[in-house]
């Protein structure tokens, strides 16, 4: 029992409720949400420290022992993810201060932001399947509100599609939960894992596993990503940075949990499906990343490619590949936030998102140009930076298991990522400066500090890989031996 575990969820929840009452006082809202997210950063670090020193932490809600109550579990993966969520959330929040605009800020932007964090933190920490569904809904409903906030025509149109697709996937989620409860009779993840291991993963359970695969793939944008490029291009930059960094990653986390803890008995069925889906995701994502000459489209298809890449690590499922998955997941959350923050700033400065209408920005904004360049190299996986270690581990894992075609596609997708982002970099920063009587706004300090610290984080994760790997390998170990997790949750029974 460790009461600290509920704080990452409770802090944003209380903040959000309090902020509802002072929605006119923008300065107060900013201060309070900044303090709350920094507090969350501290709490997440303490939890990470506790998990590192004392092993997996659990909290039984209301003192009911599992499988009867709801249990919160922080293993190494969850602890790392909540820390990264706090960091990325803080970055997006500070970026939002300078860019969101009075109108949106006084219409409950900060409460929605905090409610989104509640959902994300809850999804990472919960140890109960139906509670995961509820946390998903908390996250999704806040994301509906954030995506439509402002109410332009494009936002309304894309939100209709985004809501529809998420209602359908939530419906499927409940149906899958119903089937699973009908077969196994429990919803606690650790208990589910035990009972499925006892009963053997037979035909019905395979079907249910594939239903969950479909549900979480819809949320994560794995193969079923057709909704993603449209809906992530319409909200303001701070919000799409938050979405790109967190929302699809929650879906990926759910996939990782499901297929390492619960449905790991028949990898020939589930994991090979996932491998095919990952390959298709990378290929189609690559088409999109090459095809468009619009900043938002290129960045969104890069999100899709990275989802495919992370799924490769999960579908291979050896220890190396899982370590790589965790490493790449953490790196990708920070890197995508940086990429979208810088991309959003570019669109704001140039007043357009088309590459053909931009050029020569390096003379006016050199710091921003080099930050974008570092983000590009990190995402492509150039050695001293943070994307390299994760990619190396995933590729080593898949080569050891003999997935040669999948490895080739993953490597090719890295080239495409590099090509599409360098194309963006060259079109925007190099060449002739556009001369259309445009007045160049000044960059505010908030942006420089936020993007700069994310940049330093990526560089630090790259040079300090050895140090980060100590945490990551422990997370990977827990994933590859479900018994550790189960013992920690059910030990008091």
């Amino acid at each position, binding site marked *: 029992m460790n009461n600290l575990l509920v704080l990452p969820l409770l802090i944003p929840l209380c903040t959000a409720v309090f902020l509802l009452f002072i929605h006119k006082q923008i300065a107060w809202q900013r201060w309070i949400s900044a303090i709350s997210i920094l507090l969350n950063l501290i709490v997440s670090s303490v939890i990470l420290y506790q998990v590192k020193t004392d092993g997996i932490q659990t909290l039984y809600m209301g003192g009911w022992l599992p499988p009867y109550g709801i249990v919160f579990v922080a293993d190494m993966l969850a602890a790392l993810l909540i820390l990264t969520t706090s960091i990325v959330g803080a970055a997006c929040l500070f970026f939002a201060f300078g860019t969101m605009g009075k109108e949106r800020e006084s219409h409950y932007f900060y409460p929605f932001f905090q409610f989104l964090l509640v959902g994300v933190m809850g999804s990472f920490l919960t140890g109960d399947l*139906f509670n995961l*569904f*509820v946390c998903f*809904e908390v996250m999704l*409903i806040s994301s*509906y*509100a954030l995506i*439509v906030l402002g*109410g332009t*025509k*494009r936002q*309304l*149109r*894309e*939100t*209709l*599609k985004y*809501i*529809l697709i998420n*209602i*359908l996937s*939530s*419906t499927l989620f*409940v*149906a899958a*939960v*119903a*089937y699973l*409860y*009908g077969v196994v009779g429990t*919803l606690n993840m650790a208990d589910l894992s035990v009972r499925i291991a006892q009963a053997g993963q037979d035909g019905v359970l395979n079907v249910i596993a594939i239903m969950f695969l479909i549900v979480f793939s819809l949320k994560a944008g794995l193969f079923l990503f057709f909704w993603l490029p*449209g809906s992530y*291009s319409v909200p303001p930059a701070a919000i799409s940075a938050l979405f790109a960094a967190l929302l699809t990653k929650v879906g990926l986390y759910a996939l990782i949990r499901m297929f390492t803890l619960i449905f790991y008995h028949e990898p020939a069925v589930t994991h090979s499906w996932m491998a095919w889906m990952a390959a298709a995701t990378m290929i189609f994502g690559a088409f999109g990343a090459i095809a468009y000459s*619009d900043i938002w*489209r290129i960045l969104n298809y890069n999100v899709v490619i990275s989802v495919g890449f992370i799924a490769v690590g999960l579908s291979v499922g050896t220890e190396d590949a899982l370590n790589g998955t965790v490493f790449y997941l953490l790196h990708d959350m920070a890197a995508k936030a940086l990429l979208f923050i810088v991309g959003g700033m570019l669109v704001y400065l140039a007043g357009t*998102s088309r590459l053909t209408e931009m050029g020569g920005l390096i003379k006016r904004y050199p710091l921003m140009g080099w930050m974008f360049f570092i983000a590009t190299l990190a995402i492509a996986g150039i050695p001293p930076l943070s994307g390299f270690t994760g990619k190396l581990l995933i590729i080593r894992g898949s080569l050891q298991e003999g997935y040669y075609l999948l490895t080739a596609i993953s490597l090719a997708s890295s080239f495409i990522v590099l090509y599409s982002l360098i194309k963006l970099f060259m079109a925007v920063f190099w060449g002739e400066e556009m001369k259309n009587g445009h007045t160049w706004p000044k960059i505010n300090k908030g942006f420089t500090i936020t993007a700069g610290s994310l940049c330093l984080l990526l560089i630090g994760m790259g040079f300090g890989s050895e140090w980060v790997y100590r945490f990551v390998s422990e997370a990977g170990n827990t994933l590859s031996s479900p018994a550790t997790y189960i013992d920690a949750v059910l030990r008091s029974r």
Partner: protein
Amino acid sequence: MELYMSLAIGVIFTVGVYLVLSKSLLRIILGTSILTHGVHLLLLTMSRLKTGEAPLLGEKAEAYVDPLPQALILTSIVISFGVTSFFFVLAYKAYQKLGTDDMEQLRGKDDE
């Protein structure tokens, strides 16, 4: 009993999917709410419909029906109620601003 319920739920799902695939936005929203009815009935059915008293300890019965799915359904009902009302208001707002409820005409280009 479970068989009849399964058949009925199958019909509800079919109708829901058909409605979601149609052009008009209102029919789509109705489709989603029919689909959620389907999954709620499915949750109820999957916990077996054996005869037993309502799960109230005051009934002092030999056997009770499973209380867990009822709690799950109740949670899911209010969530889908919230989402559906949001969806309706969004559809209203979208109709006001975009001037159509035909999904075919909501296919957007980037430059508008």
